[in-house]
């Protein structure tokens, strides 16, 4: 089997995780998230030889997705991604009202906090893995998780 067909299988296997992660980062902007996801996979295809198998392929893709998101944020100086209007929900099928509340509150966090919380909780990565994916020191990731979690708790308690 060639690299192309193998890569097609990898895209199918990881598209949901990458697009879901990017939808969280872009606060539910599905179109922008999909554009960034496509760029992520194109970059991954170009750099496939550089993947050394350290960590999962999904983590490597999330690292590229995060870089793409940061590049897009830098490009949009006039309309930063953090100020984009909040969409209804980045989750295509929010299970409950609590989940919707979480997504709304999550949208008010900084991108770094959203990314750290999503990686460490929803995607099940360790703090160390999240630090590698986000190219941040471990302590910084831990403080993003801690601070983001505290903010979420306060917002959700205020809502209820």
């Amino acid at each position: 089997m060639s690299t192309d067909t193998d890569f097609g299988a990898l895209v199918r296997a990881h598209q949901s995780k990458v697009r879901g992660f990017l939808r969280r980062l872009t606060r539910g902007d599905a179109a922008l998230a999909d554009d960034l996801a496509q760029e992520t996979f194109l970059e991954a295809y170009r750099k496939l030889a550089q993947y050394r198998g350290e960590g999962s392929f999904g983590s490597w893709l999330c690292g590229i997705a995060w870089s793409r998101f940061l590049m897009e944020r830098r490009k949009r100086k006039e309309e930063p991604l953090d100020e984009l209007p909040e969409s209804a929900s980045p989750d295509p099928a929010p299970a409950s009202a609590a989940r919707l509340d979480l997504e709304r509150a999550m949208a008010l966090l900084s991108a770094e906090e959203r990314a750290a919380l999503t990686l460490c909780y929803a995607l099940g990565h360790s703090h160390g893995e999240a630090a590698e994916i986000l190219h941040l020191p471990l302590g910084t990731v831990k403080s993003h998780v801690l601070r983001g979690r505290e903010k979420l708790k306060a917002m959700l308690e205020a809502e209820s």
Partner: protein
Amino acid sequence: MNDGDLDALLSTPLGDVADAGFSKRVALAVAQREGWRERLTTYAPIAATAAVVPFLPGAQIAEAASHLTPLIANSVALSIAAAALILTISFEQRLREWQFAL
């Protein structure tokens, strides 16, 4: 909301995002970029050669070629190698087109 509830809520996996043609769009974009790369790698050497040709010593090359041509034309091994090269390149191109069509 207590810590346990918040942790449970945060730990809920992200919902599945339906593919809805996304993988095919990526495959198409990869094929397009590869097409550009292939064209570049094919035509750049041709352009470079064309740029160099006017500066080559034509008369000397023609004389050398006149000596070599009969040798090359009569070489069975060289003919087989050329045929094998052409077949390999066309087979690889067909295979790539077929894989992207899947």
